[in-house]
């Protein structure tokens, strides 16, 4: 009961702020929280990145190993993306196999990487039909402070950019980098009181009816989109989010030149 009351009060508070064009942490509607990316944090992984986005902390580890290609695509490598919303990260998360929330995050991140063709999958082929590189992207959410998906997406790309293919370990020639061609960036907005807010904090996320994630590439093209949540969006809102996402993604992408 009292939880409901608190939620109601919180909602009203944030709603009134939004009406005044403000957010609880003082950000502009199209402003991201500070994002820090630290790569190569896990030596045991072939690539890794710890992303902090406000209070959100996501650790992404890349493991690569030779394996069999899928029968219908014998000449390209395999990407397997997995997200774990471990109970450490939030009182709401429970142990057990990934549920729809974790599966959605993994699949949206996966498609963003795959569909942008940011990895040259053909170059991951070792012997056609027999052996290709399998790339496991494991997303480990340590602390949920809202907008896990953008942090997970950024972490995955950062980890991929610094990951190696350990060919020598398997007598497959010299080690090399994963062949990357683009830097797709996910940017998520929530709709609340008719307004669109980028990079929602946990509080904002919990009161918003719906969110839209847009993944854009270096050339400004869109390579992924996912609406999530139980409220509708208008066509105009969608178009505005796409515009905001492109601008914000360009800003975030700069960080990767530093990585």
């Amino acid at each position, binding site marked *: 009961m009292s939880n409901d009351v608190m939620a109601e009060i919180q909602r009203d508070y944030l709603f009134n702020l939004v009406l005044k064009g403000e957010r609880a942490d003082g950000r502009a509607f199209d402003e991201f929280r500070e994002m820090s990316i630290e790569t190569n944090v896990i030596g045991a992984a072939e690539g890794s990145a710890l992303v902090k986005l406000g209070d959100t902390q996501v650790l992404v580890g890349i493991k690569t190993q030779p394996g069999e290609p899928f029968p219908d695509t014998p000449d390209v490598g395999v990407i397997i993306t997995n997200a774990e919303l471990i109970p450490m990260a939030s009182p709401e998360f429970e142990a057990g196999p990934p549920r729809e929330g974790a599966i*959605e995050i*993994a699949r949206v991140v996966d498609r963003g990487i795959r569909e942008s063709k940011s990895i040259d999958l053909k170059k991951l082929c070792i012997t056609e039909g027999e052996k290709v590189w399998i790339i496991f992207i494991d997303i480990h959410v340590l602390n949920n402070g809202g907008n896990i998906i953008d942090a997970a997406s950024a972490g995955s790309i950062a980890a991929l950019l610094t990951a190696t293919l350990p060919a020598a370990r398997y007598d497959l020639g010299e080690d090399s980098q994963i062949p990357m061609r683009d830097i797709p960036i996910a940017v998520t907005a929530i709709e609340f009181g008719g307004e669109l807010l980028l990079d929602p904090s946990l509080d904002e996320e919990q009161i918003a009816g719906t969110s839209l994630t847009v993944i854009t590439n270096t050339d400004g093209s869109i390579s992924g989109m996912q609406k*999530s949540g139980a409220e509708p969006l*208008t*066509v105009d809102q*969608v178009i505005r989010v*796409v515009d905001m996402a492109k601008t914000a993604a360009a800003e975030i992408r700069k960080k990767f030149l530093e990585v």
Partner: protein
Amino acid sequence: MNDKPEHFIIDGKRLDGRNLDELRPIKIEMSPLDRADGSCYLEWGNNKIMAAVYGPRELHPRHRQNMTRSVVQYRYNMASFSVDERIRPGPSRRSVEISKVSREAFEPVVFTKFFPRTAIDVFIEVLQADAGTRTAGINAASLALADAGIPMRGLVSACAVGKVDGRIVLDLMKEEDNYGEADMPVAMIAGGRITLLQMDGRLTTEEFYEALKLAKTGCDKVYELQRQALLEKYGGEHPVDAEDVSLEGDTDEQ
């Protein structure tokens, strides 16, 4: 797996002879199932979809009940024989995600507040899969919900748009889906508000605008077919009568 065709569009026509903004043939059969509270069988190109609705009904286990509204549950499932390569029965990561976004496509339209503590269960079985099963499933679900007499703000209509040979086209068929450059499933409430939106592939902003517009055209066409199916089934009776008004109202809005 067939090989990739060299061209998908020749002289403005697609591989199956359709225009760029043309839907595949759609066939709707209302209430094919006897046990469900509402049901609909829908063929869309080579997709064969069965939808059933149960509810509002008691929700178990109890801790999943919501005191103030009905809980919509949506299970999208592909029959193991629905595609060339047999699917192992049971939920996959893909079907879990599709079930989630499809459920969210209906949550805005169902008057869940009328039925606290209950569940409204939507079951989609893909009996044969061509491209576009999730949108076909949503269209069938929409009609099965109406058939079950579940009060809704309007029908949900869905279709996919995509990009092949550099062109934006409506309603991808299988080859276009497999080898095309982008795929974007969209669901809308009559009137144009978007309740499902996903995109894979690569589109410029301009192409995206065009795709969104074409999706609206497609959803409008689908809506018209859904409306006819309900009219044929219920004629002047109330389920459609009441709904019809509000739907038209919605359409007028924009």
